[in-house]
C-alpha cells in the first residue's frame, strides 16, 4: 500500500475519528464533503465511542491472500452509539461465543502484513468487553 493512501486513513483507523454534520448531527466514517441527510457541508471531528453492538458476523475460512495467516477468523458488522456501523474482525473470542446483539469494544490492532516488503498495517478490531 502506498504511504500516502495509508496515511490518509490513519485518523479513523488509529484514533476512531468520525465527522459529525454541524447542521443535523449525523455522524460519518469516512469523512464526506456533503451530508447525505441534510446537504450541509460543514463537519466537526469527533471521536467515536469504543463500545459497540454486534449486528451480524461470519467466520471467514477462505480469505484474501494477505489474511491467510489469520484464517479462520470472525468478521462482524458493529454499530456504534453514534449510529455509525463498521466492518472489522472480531478477535479474542471463541467462535461459539459470538452472538448478534452482544456488546463488544473496539481496540487498536495489527490488521495485515502488506505485500512482499512485509509492511504492517494497523487499525481497529472488535474484542469482548473486559
Amino acid at each position: 500500500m502506498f504511504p500516502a493512501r495509508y496515511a490518509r486513513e490513519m485518523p479513523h483507523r488509529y484514533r476512531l475519528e468520525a465527522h459529525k454534520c454541524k447542521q443535523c448531527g449525523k455522524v460519518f466514517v469516512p469523512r464526506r464533503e456533503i451530508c447525505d441527510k441534510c446537504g450541509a457541508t460543514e463537519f466537526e471531528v469527533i471521536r467515536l465511542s469504543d463500545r459497540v453492538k454486534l449486528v451480524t458476523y461470519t467466520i471467514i475460512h477462505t480469505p484474501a491472500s494477505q489474511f491467510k495467516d489469520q484464517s479462520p477468523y470472525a468478521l462482524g458488522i458493529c454499530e456504534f452509539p453514534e449510529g455509525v456501523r463498521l466492518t472489522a474482525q472480531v478477535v479474542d473470542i471463541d467462535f461459539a461465543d459470538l452472538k448478534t446483539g452482544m456488546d463488544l469494544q473496539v481496540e487498536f490492532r495489527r490488521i495485515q502484513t502488506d505485500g512482499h516488503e512485509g509492511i504492517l498495517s494497523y487499525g481497529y478490531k472488535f474484542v469482548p468487553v473486559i
Partner: protein
Amino acid sequence: MRDVAVIGVGMPKWGELWDKSLRDVFVEAALLALADTKVDKLDNMLIGCMSGGLFVGQEHIGAIMADYLGQRHLAAGRVESACASGGLAFRCAIAEVASGMSDVVLAGGVEKMTDVSGDGATYALAAAADQEYEVFNGATFPGLYALMARAHMEKYGTTRDQLAHVAVKNHHNGTKNPNAQYPFEVTLDQVKNSVMIADPLRILDCSPITDGAAAVIVCPMEMAKDLTEKPLVKVTGLGQATDAIALHSRQDITTIEATTVAAKEAFAMAGKGPKDIDFAEVHDCFTIAEIVVTESLGFFEPGKGGPAVEAGETARGGRIPINLSGGLKSKGHPVGATGIAQIYEIVKQLRGDAGERQIENAKVGLAQNMGGSGASTLVHILEVA
C-alpha cells in the same frame, strides 16, 4: 423515445477457457449475435467488463473488441458497474437506440477470469466492495453475503436447507443449458456438506469463477422486422439504482434496496407489477442473494423467499420460475458478461427457442443484475412484441 427491440442474441459455452483470450471470448459471442440477425454493420457497441485490467491487464476494451470484430472505426466503449456491468451495457445500448443517436447497437459483456490464480481473482473481485473500509479489514465477497445471510436467517428464520435449495434448483436447471459451466445436479446434502467458505456459506452456495461472454443486438422496433427473421422481443421496462457501496452503511442488510428501487422504476415504465412476470433471471451470485433478491423485487414478501424456494415456487413449473438458465450458480459468472447472458435467456424463452429449458406461456420476462454486495442494480423487463 423510440421503442426498442432485441433482434439478435449470442452466447458460446462458458467455463475455464484456457485456449481462448479475452478478445477471442468476446468476438465469438458477438459473431453469434450478429449471425442471429441480418445485420452486418453496427452503429455502436457497448461492452460490460468489470476488470479487464486486474484479470488480464487489458483496458481500452471498446477499441480492441471493435477491431477484432472486424469493425475498425466503430463507435465502441466499455461500461462498468462491477458485476452489473453487462446490465449497464444493455441499458446504455437501449438509450442509444431509444434516443435516436444510433440504430443498430451491440450490447456485450465479457470477463476472462482464469488467467489469474484464485487469489488473483479474489483480489480483483474485492475491488467491487469498499476497498478501504471492508476489504482492508478482511472482508471477502462470500463474507459480505454471509453477513447478510446470518442477518436474514436471524430476522426471518431462513434456514440452511432453504439456502441449499437455491443451489439444487439452479444446478438442475443448468443441466438443460448446453452453455453452462457446471451443468450437473447437486443434492441438498452435497451443498450442506461442501467446504466452508464464509459461515454459513459453503462452496456450493457460491457462483464459480468463469471465462465467458454474451452479446445481444438492439434496434428501433420499426426496423426490427427487416433485420431479423426471429420472433420480435420488445424492451418495455428499465430500472437502475445504486446504494452505499459498503454493506455496513446500508439502511437494512436483509434486503437489497437498490434492487427494489430499480424494479419499481422498471415496473412503472412497463405498466406491470411483480405478479405479471412469467419468469425471471436474477443475480444468484450466492444462494442467499437469490432469496433476498426475489423478496426485493416484490415476488415474495420479506422473509418468504426461503420458504418459496423450498416449496418449489421458483422451480420450473412453479408459480414464477427463477433462473431457468441455471443462474450464475450453474451457468457460471464471468462478471461483466452475466447481465447480458440474462437477457440472452429471457429472449430465448420469449421467442420459444430455449430448447429443453423452454417453459410454456413465456410472454413477460424480467432480468435483475447487481454489482458488489448490491450497491448497484439494473432491472429490465422484456416482452413478446
